[in-house]
């Protein structure tokens, strides 16, 4: 998409421009939060309460937990 098309479709009318900015802000803030949370929970997998709870429910007698990091 060339810049002139972009200009004609989005930037020419201020109402369309402002509306596009706000609508994409709405979509962005939700999807950005989802994406960051997803990465954060993958990065910390096994340490979060929801993972710990599952381990405890499975019967926590497995001793191969990596807690020896002093």
């Amino acid at each position: 998409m060339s810049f002139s098309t972009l200009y004609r479709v989005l930037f020419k009318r201020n109402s369309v421009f402002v509306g596009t900015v706000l609508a994409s802000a709405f979509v962005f803030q939700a999807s950005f939060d989802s994406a960051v949370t997803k990465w954060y929970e993958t990065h910390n997998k096994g340490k979060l309460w929801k993972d710990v709870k599952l381990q405890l429910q499975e019967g926590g007698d497995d001793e191969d937990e990596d807690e020896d990091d002093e």
Partner: protein
Amino acid sequence: MFSQVRRVATNATTRKFLAGGALISGVSASAALYADSLTAQAMTAAEHGLHPPAFSWPHNGPFDTFDHAAIRRGYQVYREVCAACHSLDRIAWRTLIGVSHTNQEVRDMSAEFEYDDEPDEQGNPKKRPGKLADYIPGPYPNEQAARSANQGALPPDLSLIVKARHGGADYIFSLLTGYPEEPPAGVVLPPGSNYNPYFPGGAIAMGRVLFDDLVEYEDGTPATTSQMAKDVTTFLNWCSEPEHDERKRLGLKAILVVSSLYLLSVWVKKFKWAAIKNRKFVFNPPKTKK
């Protein structure tokens, strides 16, 4: 200036003098530091306590959460060991839910304690079992009771202890595991106190409390001294910073947004200034008539 220094240093006597001075000051500084470490007088190294090493906690990184399994085990250590002397006044039962225990587990734990209830119709005080909204009760009713039970020493409240001590979690862990078998020769301790190099002054009223297999973990983790110290320190760190996990998540979001806006602003600046920076002014003087 540098050439002057070089000229002075070329003089053989001056060079010897400088080397001798450096040697003397190095040796005397080492001797002074060593002498300083032998006593625990005011303003000495021993008075400030040994600096704890930096441990690699699972929550050290800027994007790393607490190890919630450790928080859960740490609560068990607090309950079975620390809670005999130390209170945890600022932690409400409800805050443990979704962090280290389920709703029902916390209900059962809180119901094991008695709290003051409304008086009955004759005005007699009544007791009721604890609820989720209650705060975790301490071992003593007031400071005087705590002091009289501990030979005058007051066990500090542990709610904010990790934030309240230099070195934070590293210090707490070092203190708990740092009790030697015997105090070093020449150390004189006041009656009723124990030697711990990490404690400022070296004489701490709390004795060593964590020994191997003191508690039995439900998840089968071997309860070594250092394991228990690590778990209870993680728990106390959570008590001090219950917002920790969410704070790091929001920090990650803020860093991503702010740094991309910064890069964008750099690009916009370069874009806008490109025409100005690349302009070339040429002056063509008018041809002079002969």
